[in-house]
């Protein structure tokens, strides 16, 4: 066998396809580009296979089982619901899980979860970044005192996860929080929660949605006349979500950690080697948009993980075990980014045995009516607030799952 098998769990169908398609395209195109341009990684071709999950846990697990026997080097579940059941299996099946900025936040703790990686930031990081951005805008975090922040979220584990931190921050900085849960089946039917928003008149709104919920939330905000420039979101809204509302959505802001345009050599290569050769399923216009680039970033992490694995193991054809080590020793610095043709595409990131996340500083971007533009410098997360939460969550997980194995995997030096 002289190839490396990389399965991609994607969802181009179902209720969340609107977001899933772009991510899938980005992921696939970047890796295809490596195959086309460089003949794979370290001279070894990548064998790519998509498995359609429809964002459904059942199908996701079926996909996992289907690809498991083909020696995958890494799994990208692309859904928190699919990630959770896979976490305990990863160590047993020796396949690392890369859940990029989703999944179980606690899995940032590499000592407890040697097989799970969720770079570059956790939801707790994201929330703290939004709050500190608000703080700077107000002229200091202490100025948040007495302010009212509305939190509109998908009523699921994903949307509920930041709540403890949000409550704690509210206590620490003296602001008030209002919660607006949106059930999955009411994603596109949010009017009553927005009535509540109208009544409560929060000073800021924070959005924690996914799929059709994001677009609908922006539309509803425009309908109710909520000032768009006070509306912030975690990193999941894509260009399409905003475009549906168009001009009135101007001023909407969300976090991001990578560029939202296509002016990078790597993306140009994708255009040249993949899109123009009709090897991509993507609509060329979408190359360089937020979610497409998110997919690209995800694949970049995979590729780096594999490259590192080749380095630490000295093998060409690496295994899942090797890629786990590769990911743990990943250090993408500015030089490396430049080498990859991604200079300025994202900040440098470094993972370690203990830290599987990186807690990257993310920046704020704003919708200008046509596209997202970066409007802030990277905002570091509030480590002091986030770290204890992460630690206790990881400990909690290990305790509740009695018999959760202690880390036995050796720790490599960064290569």
């Amino acid at each position, binding site marked *: 066998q002289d190839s490396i098998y990389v399965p991609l769990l994607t969802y181009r169908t179902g209720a969340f*396809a609107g977001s899933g398609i772009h991510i899938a395209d980005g992921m696939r195109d970047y890796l295809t580009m490596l195959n086309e341009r460089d003949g794979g990684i370290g001279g070894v071709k990548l064998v790519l296979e998509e498995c359609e999950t429809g964002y459904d846990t059942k199908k996701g697990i079926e996909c996992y089982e289907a690809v498991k026997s083909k020696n995958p080097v890494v799994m990208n579940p692309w859904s928190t619901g699919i990630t959770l059941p896979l976490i305990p299996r990863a160590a047993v099946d020796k396949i690392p899980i890369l859940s990029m900025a989703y999944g179980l936040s606690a899995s940032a703790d590499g000592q407890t979860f040697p097989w799970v990686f969720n770079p570059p930031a956790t939801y707790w990081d994201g929330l703290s970044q939004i709050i500190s951005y608000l703080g700077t805008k107000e002229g200091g975090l202490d100025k948040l005192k007495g302010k009212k922040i509305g939190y509109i979220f998908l009523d699921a584990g994903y949307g509920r996860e930041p709540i403890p931190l949000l409550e704690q921050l509210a206590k620490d900085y003296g602001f008030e929080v209002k919660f607006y849960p949106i059930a999955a*089946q009411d994603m596109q039917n949010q*009017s*009553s929660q927005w009535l509540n928003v109208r009544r409560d008149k929060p000073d800021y709104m924070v959005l924690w949605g996914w799929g*059709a919920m994001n*677009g609908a939330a922006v539309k509803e905000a425009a309908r109710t006349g909520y000032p768009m420039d006070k509306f912030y979101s975690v990193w999941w809204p894509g260009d399409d979500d905003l475009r549906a509302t168009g001009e009135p959505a101007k001023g909407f802001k969300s976090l991001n950690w990578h560029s939202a345009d296509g002016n990078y050599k790597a993306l140009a290569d994708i255009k040249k080697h993949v899109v123009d050769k009709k090897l991509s399923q993507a609509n060329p216009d979408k190359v360089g948009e937020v979610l497409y680039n998110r997919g690209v970033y995800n694949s970049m992490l995979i590729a780096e993980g594999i490259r590192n694995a080749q380095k630490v193991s000295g093998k060409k054809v690496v295994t899942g075990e090797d890629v786990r080590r590769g990911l743990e020793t990943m250090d993408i610095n500015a030089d490396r980014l430049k080498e990859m043709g991604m200079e300025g595409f994202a900040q440098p990131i470094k993972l370690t045995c203990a830290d599987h996340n990186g807690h990257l500083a993310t920046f704020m971007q704003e919708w200008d009516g046509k596209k997202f533009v970066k409007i802030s410098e990277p905002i570091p997360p509030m480590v002091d607030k986030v770290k204890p939460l992460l630690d206790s969550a990881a400990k909690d997980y290990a305790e509740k799952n009695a018999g959760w194995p202690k880390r036995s995997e050796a720790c490599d030096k960064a290569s």
Partner: protein
Amino acid sequence: MLYNVLIDPFVMMGSAPDLLIQTLWEGLVAGVLYALIALGFVLIFKASGVFNFAQGIMVVFAALTLVGLHEMGVPALLALILTIGVMFILAVTVERVVLRPLVNQPDIILFMATFGLTYFLIGFGELIFGGNPKQMIAQELYLPQGSTDLDLFGGLVRFQHIDIAAAVIASLIIAVLAVFFSKTRIGRALRAVADSHKAALSVGISLGQIWVIVWFAAGIVALVAGIMWGARSDVSFALQIVALKALPVLILGGFTSIPGAIVGGLIIGVSEKLGEFYWGGLVGGGIETWLAYIIALLFLLYRPQGLFGERIIERI
């Protein structure tokens, strides 16, 4: 506690009447939209006793076809006409392929068949139009945009023009359908078919013709619902989930009644919004998902056939 449940909400209503009016209006609008989806169910149920699980996907499919055609460069109005044509073809196909061979089968079997249809339409729709959400071409269809803000009771109450349009169109459709089904011989035949396929066949009612008519009507209603919902959020397969909301509406209004669909829709819409707005906060919000069902359930305990549903005949 009791104060919070029984008194406080009403105090809130009294103290901010503008919000109350806005809530009522939002409830009415949501109600109209639910009713539009429910109406599609009612038409088909009324004429064949079939609970059409596919109504939700028909809404999506119709809207997607419209938008998809437009994206391919067909002018909006022509796309609308073509979409109506597609819905007609769908009606004929469904009658030929699904209903005709299953005539006189138990309701639940036909229900299941419409599930097969749902699956098929999902696959077909995504195959042709792709899975990504599309924007409704509201402007091109001359649907009004913007809103009117009225100064009422010391606060602004906002009426979206598109919502007003939805209400007007829904009322028109319902009026037309009500007349069509009550004043024509087809209307009577329809109810006969729903009662018994076998007896209807024996008196020479052409089930095929009736079914094509109602499925086509339901298709058009689905298209209208799709346009209206699509204009609110966007056109994607996630819209299908909203269609579930039509269930409590149907149950409340009665499966067989056209006015029932609208009245049920309004009741559910309004009580859901009021409930969420004034009482939801007590338990952390988000009670909208089940409130409608509980309301419908309590109501059914009192009147097992729904508001306007046909009496359930129990004789021996």
